[in-house]
């Protein structure tokens, strides 16, 4: 392919390349760096004062409740991710292999709808469904079961996380599996591999990259959400995002909130890095 003669300074290329660099540096990297700096500021008389002190780090990380919240958030996000991945898988598998193309397109389209309805309003709808006098318990009482307490529990929080992440996970898993080479699956069948084993040994490894990306997004969304644990989990116990809001609500402790936020970010970067490495790792011997 012939290209126009290369200039020393390619104005054309730079026009396309530079805008995003400038914009993101100013409005993405800038805020994040400022937040890191902010974690060293101090609050005097309800106003933030620029400084370079470690008190916020010492105080926050020295608190028992911070670490309780930290591990709880980690645990709940992991649980939500596992649940979402497992629950979504059969549906995604069906959408990828067992339905006609047009049905799949419509299904994806329908799954995009929840993204554009207010997440907050959807969470509130769960109140009526999950309450002790709510829909689910009313139905269960007809068969003599219950009533079960589902609100203000970790169960409620997980339901909330699933409300947030399930559509996305189904979509990503479907894309991941729909794009694998079906001839390989057929070959496995022909070589005598049983159906379930095919899924486990052929489909999943082939779709590995997409599946890990789906899990990663699910984890990130759950880890950073405060609506579900607050409204459906009763803040009991509070997760890290709730802690951030709580900290800013008391005496304007933005620097302390920044400490919590940075710890969250470090965790997420670590998880993302591990996930992406695993997703794109070349298989050893196949």
């Amino acid at each position: 392919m012939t290209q126009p003669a290369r200039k020393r300074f390619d104005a054309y290329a730079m026009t396309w390349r530079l805008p995003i660099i400038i914009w993101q540096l100013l409005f993405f990297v800038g805020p994040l760096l400022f937040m890191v700096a902010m974690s060293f500021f101090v609050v005097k008389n309800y106003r933030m004062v620029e400084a370079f002190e470690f008190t916020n780090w010492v105080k926050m990380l020295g608190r028992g409740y911070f670490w309780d919240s930290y591990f709880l958030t980690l645990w709940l996000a992991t649980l939500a991710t596992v649940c979402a991945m497992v629950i979504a898988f059969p549906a995604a598998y069906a959408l990828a292999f067992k339905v006609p193309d047009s049905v799949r397109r419509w299904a994806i389209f329908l799954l995009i709808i929840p993204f554009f309805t207010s997440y907050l309003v959807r969470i509130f709808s769960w109140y009526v469904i999950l309450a002790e006098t709510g829909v689910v318990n009313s139905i269960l009482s007809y068969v003599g079961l219950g009533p079960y307490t589902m609100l203000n529990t970790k169960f409620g929080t997980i339901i909330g996380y699933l409300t947030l992440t399930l559509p996305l996970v189904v979509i990503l898993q479907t894309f991941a599996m729909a794009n694998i080479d079906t001839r390989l699956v057929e070959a496995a069948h022909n070589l005598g591999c049983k159906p379930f084993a095919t899924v486990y040994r052929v489909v999943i490894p082939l779709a590995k990259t997409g599946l890990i990306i789906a899990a990663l997004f699910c984890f990130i969304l759950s880890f950073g959400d405060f609506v579900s644990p607050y409204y459906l989990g009763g803040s009991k116990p509070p997760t890290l995002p709730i802690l951030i809001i709580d900290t800013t609500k008391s005496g304007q402790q933005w620097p302390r909130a920044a400490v919590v936020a940075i710890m969250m970010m470090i965790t997420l970067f670590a998880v993302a890095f591990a996930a992406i490495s695993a997703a794109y790792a070349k298989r050893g011997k196949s």
Partner: protein
Amino acid sequence: MSKIKNLGGLVTPSRRDVLKYGGAAALSMPFVSRAWAQTVEVNMLAWYGHGEPDIVGEFEAANNVKFKPKYYAGGDNMLGLIAQSPPGTYDIILSDAEFVQQLNAAGYIEELNAADYNFDDMLYDDFKKFPGHWDGDKLHSVMVRCGHLGVSYNKNAITAEEATSYKCFWKPEVKGKVGHFDWHLPSLGMMSLYNGNGAGLWDLDDAKWDAVKKATMSLRSQVGGFFDYGGTFNSLKNGEMQAMCGIGDWITGVLEKDGAPVASVVPKEGGIQWTESYCIGKGSQKADMVKKFIQYMLTPEGQVKSAEMKAYPGFAITKGGRAKLIEVDKKEAERTGQIDGMTNDPITLIKEGRIHYRGIPKQQSLEDWNDFWSEYKNA
């Protein structure tokens, strides 16, 4: 230029053009509507409901004013909002009384002229010179309404007899069904009263503070959750929570009117009074209009509107206001005891010393209380 082929007969102008012109039209609309409206805009910072039509509607119509409210939930939240905005953003600020001093210390509010406001009509002497609102003879904030916090309960789970003491929160039958309003101040204040600290409920030395923490922790196993406004309403209404700590009639009053079997009562250990006052934001260009509005809120009509506020009810604090309320809405006056001589007359309760104004902890910082609150939630 590329020709755009039309599929299936759809006539399609360049989509980019539609977006371009549509966007331009949308962007110019604010200017159009602003040109038509010549009303004065007053920016209000308040608890939810103070800028709604049922309160400001008549005043707006009579004075060609439009209130633009920004709502907060909690005094800390309010301070944060002001701190993060350029000075002069908010013309009128509704503040809880105990936060007025901080507003003043941080230089967020203007000094007011005491002669402008009718203090003589107040029902109770304290209201005339409410603690924290004055700096010697300088007035910074005018009290407009108040309400009482105590035991809020579901009548089907707790009897009126049991509700006369905070002890009912520990009742085994309501295990897992006691909720907290998600703000440390009122809940911990109630625990302090439960411990018998009475008028010194905010002034705790180390030993007393430890005792309060201990009492609070002992309640933890009863707790079903920590809620904001929306969560509190929903939980009490659908029965998930059968007792709520940290609130009062301002929530249950609304639910009662909606038919829920809930009520609030001031227990024998004492109740807490929340007090709301208006201040003029520093650097406001609309100070005159704000002053007029504050005066309006102190008239009998304004007081009735405040007492009957849709978002949450409060007490009328002027004699004229009380009289007018009895005249136009006797039922509400009876429900809340705002008739001279009734046993639960709020003024009587204050005189008897059973009500304590909500304040800020004296020997600990707000941060210390909030730290403990986070610990409590995590327990």
